[in-house]
């Protein structure tokens, strides 16, 4: 396909409206033609901002023959059903992470993509984030030798109310799925091999998590062959004004050296606010990913649809990230190490 890829955006919430919709203006080979949300206000707002046509029922978007691809920014529990439906209608699919809530759903998505011979890409945006691609490049160049240890933290105060789908184990999957897949995919990407065992502890700290009976704080220890270690803390239970500049931490140890990144390093500016105290930086719009990363991610998807590139993150990679996150939650619930074999395809 060499013509312009015509895209329908399904889900105009946080990430759909703020990160995905504006990205299309930077991608000449794509055109956002339809935007959809059951919340009509949101659909109208994004339609106004982008010039696309608003829809309130995604079936109408899928029914449009002139739409080549859909960009799914729905709550996690809808990812699988809508992706499979879209693939069966012949659409290429870019779907936000986590891929799905269960591995059965993930496998159904992979099968649907194969049968329809369409592109399925899961939006693991860290793989397109200049911070993390720079680190990956340094690893591939052997700058710190052979990677043996990764410590990662992604932590924040989740700002959503207790009835938000994020908190619910079967809707958003709690911290293990929602943030867990970001760290497990990073580990898999950096070690570039299959893991061996997963161990985790989970906590229900905030009242919202306790009410939903899902975890909002966890530590993970994932081992890769030769005893290589990946360790993470993921949390929504940090205090409300916990600085966004503290969100991400990444420390790598290699046989020839160490590599350390934290969001503090990305912010040569301090802001002292009379209400919020001290924070840095104010020029990342989002907490965890750069705007440029979403543009790069979507542009890559478009390039793959046009046959100009190979998927940098396959659906199988996304399934691995999900399987590891699910295994971590199992480990926490059952208080035991989980072997990769238990969740491997």
């Amino acid at each position, binding site marked *: 396909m060499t013509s312009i890829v015509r895209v329908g955006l399904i889900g105009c919430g946080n990430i759909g409206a703020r990160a995905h919709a504006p990205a299309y203006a930077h991608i000449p080979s794509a055109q956002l033609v339809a935007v959809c949300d059951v919340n009509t206000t949101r659909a109208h707002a994004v339609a106004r901002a982008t010039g696309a046509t608003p829809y309130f029922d995604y079936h109408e978007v899928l029914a449009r023959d002139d739409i080549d691809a859909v960009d799914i920014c729905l709550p996690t529990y809808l990812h699988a059903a809508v992706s499979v439906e879209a693939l069966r209608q012949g659409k290429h699919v870019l779907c936000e992470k986590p891929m799905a809530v269960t591995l059965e759903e993930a496998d159904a998505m992979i099968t649907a993509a194969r049968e329809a011979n369409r592109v399925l890409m899961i939006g693991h945006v860290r793989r397109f984030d200049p911070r993390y691609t720079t680190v990956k490049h340094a690893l591939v160049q052997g700058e710190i030798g052979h990677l043996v*240890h990764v410590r990662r933290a992604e932590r924040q105060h989740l700002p959503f109310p207790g009835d938000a789908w994020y908190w619910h184990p079967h809707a958003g999957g709690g911290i293990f799925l929602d943030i867990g897949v970001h760290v497990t995919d990073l580990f898999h990407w950096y070690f570039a091999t299959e893991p061996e065992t997963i161990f985790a502890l989970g*906590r229900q700290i905030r009242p919202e998590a306790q009410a939903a009976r899902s975890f909002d704080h966890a*530590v993970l220890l994932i081992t890769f062959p030769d*005893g290589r270690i990946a*360790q993470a*803390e993921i949390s929504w*239970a940090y205090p409300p004004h916990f600085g966004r500049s503290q969100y991400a931490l990444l420390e790598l140890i290699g*046989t020839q050296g160490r590599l350390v990144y934290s969001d503090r390093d990305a912010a040569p500016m301090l802001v002292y606010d009379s209400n919020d105290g001290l924070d840095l930086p104010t020029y990342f719009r989002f907490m965890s990913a750069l705007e440029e990363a979403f543009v790069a991610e979507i542009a890559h998807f478009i390039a793959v649809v046009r046959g100009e590139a190979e998927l940098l993150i396959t659906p199988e990679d996304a399934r691995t990230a999900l399987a590891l996150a699910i295994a971590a939650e199992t480990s926490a619930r059952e208080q035991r190490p989980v072997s990769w074999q238990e969740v491997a395809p």
Partner: protein
Amino acid sequence: MKDTVGLAVISYAHLHAPRYTAAIVEHPHARLVAIVGYGENAEVARAEAQRYGVPYCTTLDDLATLSGVDAVYLASEPKDHRHLVAWASEQGWHVLCDKPIATTLTDAAAIVHIAQQAGIKLMVPFNPRYQLPVQRIKSELESGEAGELIAVNALKYGKLPVWAQSPQRAEWFLDPARSGGGGFLDIGIHALDALRWLSNSDPARIYARVGTYIHTGQVAEDLGTLVVEFANGVIGTLSAGWVNPQGFPGWLDIGFEVLTTRRAYHVYSPYHSLSIYTQDRAERRAWWRRDVYGLVDEFVSAIQEDRDPAITGEDGLIALAMAFAAYESSRTGQVVEFKEWLQRQLKPLSSSTRTGETPP
């Protein structure tokens, strides 16, 4: 109350010795009586004795003839601790015994027992307890102003001891028969104690991976990562080892990340430091090791006030056991149920091993 506590330093094997000797000399209620050149680095011990103008002893017997000794600081190889604690307790002297308390749990238990029987004070110096930021966190947890503790992540990365720019030789650190283990034990043990101290609880379950990743064939282990769940539910993690490359500015990289229901604390530099850059070198240097003065002061005060020191031999034993439980978990791939496991480790201790003699 004793106005002045007489202290002798036994051995300069450990790289810590010069720093502790300096703190003893500067302490207003301590008096450095003598230095014994026991084992490695005797020539450094001799030079230090000369520098401080105190007698230098080549043997323990020489030291026993001196008057005015109330206590000793042991900076020997850990494998000699049991023997030395037994000997000191026979003199009726209190012991500040550098970490790890011993190279085996059997020896550690014997040391605790010997000190108890002799009625001497036994203290193990774990630095984080006297690092100002960590002390602040502890006090805010105790006062309740920080709310409830959820989790503590600790980091302790250092360099291979033999890289130290020091007149002291450090090869013995690399031999587990003499030191007890490798890098995870050597520098991680401070943080293991800190996790337990901050959590105010004992370990319930430990899961870990420990191994030799960088200095292959040279060390017992150079890196380990542990997850511990304390009996009260607090989560602890530690990543520690000899992983800093030669180019790391300075020696240690220490971190504590503490999350409570009200606060998050990040301590990435527990010392008062400064940076020096030259044409070929970048160095971050601590200019005040307040922790060492605090530890020496606590030991001296406990003797003066005739009370238990803040860090006991038991604390030293449990920290060692946590490190060994990490080895066990790493070897088996299983979670170690700490209390039961420790009981099993200590059970075979027959009364015959509860003396100063190292069993054959």
